[in-house]
């Protein structure tokens, strides 16, 4: 996607870029991606948009200390992850009840590809929601945002060792959950 050019960390732009312009540029480049990140963490799109909007407002307020699009993006991602976690905590009781009530996914007719994809989408989002929070966060940062262990550790404020442990336990758990729900041979 072609978005307004953001000069990366070593760039000279930081002196010139004011908070409003930064907000507009970062919105253009990352709004959709960050909402999608929040959907992976929260499952619910409305809540994901709320959380992401709050993150942008917070970033705007901190721009004077960030003053760099790369730092601002890292800040936005961290804030989306943190606020998603708090949103889930508030929703926890309701969610746990809803999860028990959610009917098992139907196994789709393989000939019906769109249904299959829809089912796989919900299977992936359901399976992510079923993971412990840290495992979900680590997996999403690793595989959706392509972050390195070091970056994940910085974003979540945990050690590299913990990142490694959450990643291996999380991906084993996720694969187990998904293989129950998806057709054989799709994973």
């Amino acid at each position: 996607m072609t978005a307004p050019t953001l000069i990366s960390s070593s760039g000279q732009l930081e002196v010139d870029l004011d908070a409003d312009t930064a907000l507009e540029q970062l919105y253009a480049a990352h709004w959709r991606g960050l909402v999608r990140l929040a959907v992976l963490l929260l499952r619910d799109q409305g809540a994901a948009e709320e959380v992401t909007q709050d993150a942008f407002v917070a970033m705007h307020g901190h721009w004077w200390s960030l003053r760099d699009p790369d730092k601002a993006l890292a800040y936005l991602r961290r804030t989306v992850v943190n606020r998603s976690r708090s949103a889930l905590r508030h929703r926890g009781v309701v969610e746990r009840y809803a999860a028990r009530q959610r009917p098992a996914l139907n196994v789709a007719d393989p000939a019906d590809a769109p249904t299959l994809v829809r089912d796989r989408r919900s299977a992936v989002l359901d399976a992510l929601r079923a993971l412990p929070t840290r495992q979900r966060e680590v997996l999403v940062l690793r595989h959706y945002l392509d972050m390195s262990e070091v970056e994940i550790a910085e974003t979540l404020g945990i050690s590299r060792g913990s990142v490694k442990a959450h990643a291996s336990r999380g991906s084993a758990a996720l694969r187990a959950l998904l293989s129950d729900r998806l057709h054989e041979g799709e994973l």
Partner: protein
Amino acid sequence: MDDLATLFKEAVDTVEPRDRRAELREAVTVAGRRRVRRTVTGGLLAAAVVVTGVAVTMHGTDNHQDAGPVGPPRAIDRSRDDRPAYALYYLGQTPKGPRLYREFRPGPGPDMTPASSLSLMQEQPDDPDYRTMWPDGTFSDAQVVNDVIDVEVADPASVAHRLDGMSPAQAELSVDQVIYTVQAAVQEELPVQFTHDGSPLAQVLGVPTSEPLARGEAVDVLALASISNPSERRVVEGYFSADGQASSFEGAVPWELLDANGTVVKHDTAQTYGYGDRLYPWATGRIDVSDLAPGVYTFVVMTADPSGGAEGPGPTRDTRTIIIK
């Protein structure tokens, strides 16, 4: 190959968030006003230090620099209103004949309109491998009327028949090019009616158009391997990742990174979860390029060729130029 990356991307690739720019501007203005009151003691001092620091860098002096209104944002300049990315379709060559490739380009906003998408489509694409065969100025307008996208043709006589040097396949595909492009702008698969002065046209480029048209099936019309990200001439540092869609034998989507001499410096295969009946998303996961010298590289994705080139038309490819910093 990173199967979780592909699954995660697919899980959210249809999520199109609502545009919240208006709420966001409102929220930061309110937050800004609140912050000014709150930060009179601490925040403004810190802000003044920052501004002084900048002033030194810029002017070599810290005299008479007004600390200024750092806390509250000034009104957002609406002339710079954000430009949404339009998905524009162009003809490209594949071993199966011409197919449509998609390119994203910023255009008039805040909401995308089919009219703007067509005027962008009539400009030349960023990717030199793509092209449009419609003469500039063919389409003067487009709008949604009663759940049909009316595409207004300025001079119907000039495009009623196939143009010189245009194959029947290119003519059909050019009609699909318009359908895909305006449908992308309205983000709905509404039928498309070619019109002049509001009346339906009997044919365009020799293709019958008296009724509203549905888009051609993706597997018949679109390139079987294409790149959505990165965009053309994207600058990357340390690493990048790529994604797109494909329908390739056994779901295998090989990719290569070539240096300026055309030497393959990285390669791997991404995996989709199906093939044949439609296009499926692929994603590379993280591609580490920190070991490569800065310069211009080409990222290539292709359909798998089970015969190894021994038979059949060979793979469909899509390429992007990337610049490694």
